[in-house]
């Protein structure tokens, strides 16, 4: 069995010290890795990223993250990335990583993604250069996640995004802002390349569960949506260690 812990939208501020550390206690014995779907900081201040790295100091599991729009806000995303990497966190923006766990390999392709909206109500690559630029950013993210997922191998393949690939996990947000919360292009890319699960955040008042049109489970792991510091996803497959795991795998 492989257990993935996932969360997003921590929005840590300078006054947040201690809040995430407290809930991570014991997680190293119940999960194999921690995936974060962006917005670790609130203002995108490097000092907030240091609050995060202090929170995970001494934490034993591999931590993989993408950045969110809040992590970009102050224009210090490169510095934030370095601070995270210096603390041993893997930051994905178009890259992928394979994590070898006791139960098998988890392969993660990650990128922030962007908005644009959903089928029938989406931004078109048309008109002013500013509009084309907006759409181009989303298209580039979709192409990137598709190509990195396509070349990934692992017992569990994860697409890690900040923006949503589908509408279902936005339910609860105001309809008018859906185009700022995600894009169908991300779903189309993931469906083409294949994955076992898509994790995202960003939609704080959205819903937890949905599926891409191609049938891949999508989970919004924003903390305000979960009502918990993180969610656990257990995959009963891969290299097996225990007898009970073996039974589950044989049946599937």
């Amino acid at each position: 069995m492989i257990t993935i812990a996932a969360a997003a939208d921590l929005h840590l501020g300078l006054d947040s010290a201690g809040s995430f550390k407290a809930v991570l206690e014991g997680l190293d014995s119940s999960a194999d890795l921690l995936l974060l779907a962006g917005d670790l900081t609130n203002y995108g201040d490097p000092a907030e990223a240091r609050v995060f790295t202090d929170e995970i100091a001494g934490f034993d599991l591999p931590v993989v993250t993408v950045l969110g729009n809040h992590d970009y806000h102050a224009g210090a995303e490169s510095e934030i990335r370095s601070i995270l990497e210096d603390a041993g966190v893997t930051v994905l923006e178009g890259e992928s990583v394979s994590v070898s766990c006791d139960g098998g390999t988890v392969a993660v392709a990650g990128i922030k993604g962007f908005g644009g909206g959903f089928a029938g109500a989406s931004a078109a690559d048309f008109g002013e250069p500013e509009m084309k630029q907006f759409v181009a950013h989303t298209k580039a993210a979709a192409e990137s996640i598709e190509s990195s997922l396509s070349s990934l191998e692992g017992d569990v393949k994860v697409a890690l995004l900040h923006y949503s690939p589908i509408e279902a996990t936005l339910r609860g947000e105001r309809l008018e802002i859906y185009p700022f919360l995600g894009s169908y292009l991300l779903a189309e890319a993931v469906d083409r390349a294949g994955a076992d699960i898509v994790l995202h955040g960003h939609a704080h008042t959205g819903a937890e569960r949905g599926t891409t049109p191609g049938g891949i489970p999508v989970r919004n792991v924003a903390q305000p949506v979960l009502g918990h510091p993180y969610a656990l996803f257990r995959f009963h497959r891969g290299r097996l260690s225990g007898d009970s795991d073996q039974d589950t795998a044989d049946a599937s």
Partner: protein
Amino acid sequence: MTELGDEPVEYSVAHIKEALAADPHTAELHVEVQVKGSSVAVTGRVTTDERRNAVEEVIGRLYPGARIQNYIAVEVLDADPTVEDLS
């Protein structure tokens, strides 16, 4: 300085939302704002007490005479995670 009531309500709401997003002490995009007369009601959830208080300060700086009703909740996360089994 513009006060609430000196301009159409929708502009006041927009100015407040913009200020809450731009101010480093709030950087909040997830607060809902309603304006009626000289009152502002804010709702939503933030992650810290300091940020909840900062919302009032930001609105107070923008509209010094505003009566602020702060209905923002500070996020309390249940320690037990949700567990989902996927095949």
